[in-house]
């Protein structure tokens, strides 16, 4: 691609990645969540792939595959954590530990340290969606030939 596209992609890639992380991190407070944040981060990856070609990211397929497996496994393990009650029971909510503070009443700016296992599940889904969509676009970009136009 042209130098304009490359420069804009170089500037916007960390911004889009951080915004995806923000959407995942605040998934239990604001609109968005694991899937939406992962899609935003994967679109940052797709922008880099379109601007620079797939040549530099050719050996990252294993990393993306491992990240996707990690996300899926973490989601299932977090579901099994609540097996003393039911599958997906929220054992961390209200425990005053990790993400364990009780939700404040009334209008409030939002407490990030609430909701128990839900933020962790959001991160798991976010990594899985980022790795899955990123691997799909990367394989699409790698298909047929090595030219870097």
């Amino acid at each position, binding site marked *: 691609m042209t130098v304009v596209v490359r420069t804009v992609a170089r500037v916007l890639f960390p911004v889009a990645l951080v915004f995806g992380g923000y959407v995942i991190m605040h998934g239990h407070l604001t609109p968005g*969540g694991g899937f939406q944040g992962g*899609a935003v981060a994967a*679109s940052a990856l797709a922008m880099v792939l*379109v601007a620079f070609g797939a040549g530099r990211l050719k050996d990252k397929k294993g990393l993306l595959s491992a990240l996707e497996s990690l996300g899926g496994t973490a989601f299932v393990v977090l579901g099994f954590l609540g097996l003393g009650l039911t599958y997906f029971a929220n054992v961390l909510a209200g425990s005053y530990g990790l993400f364990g503070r009780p939700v404040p009443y009334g209008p409030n700016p939002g407490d990030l340290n609430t909701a128990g296992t839900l933020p962790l599940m959001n991160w798991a889904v976010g990594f899985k969606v980022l790795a899955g969509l990123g691997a799909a*676009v990367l394989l699409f970009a790698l298909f047929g030939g090595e030219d870097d136009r």
Partner: protein
Amino acid sequence: MTLWASLLTMSLAMTVLAGLLAVVLRDLLAAALALGAQGLFLSLAFYLLQAPDVAIAQAGIGAALTTAIFLLAIRRTRRKEEE
């Protein structure tokens, strides 16, 4: 008509217009970009209908990722559509 209604009407009309452009255009690169614009206007309509969740997903998947996939596909094939 309120500001909200006029904005919603405008975004829906632009969605239809961009979709028609994506069908009509012979240059496949321009057609892919029109499809991306259609996704962006559709996400604006979702936001105005108070579904910001769906709007983020539509902007990420519909506007960005499908456009990137189409651009990568056009890079591997021809740019002009044949009769």
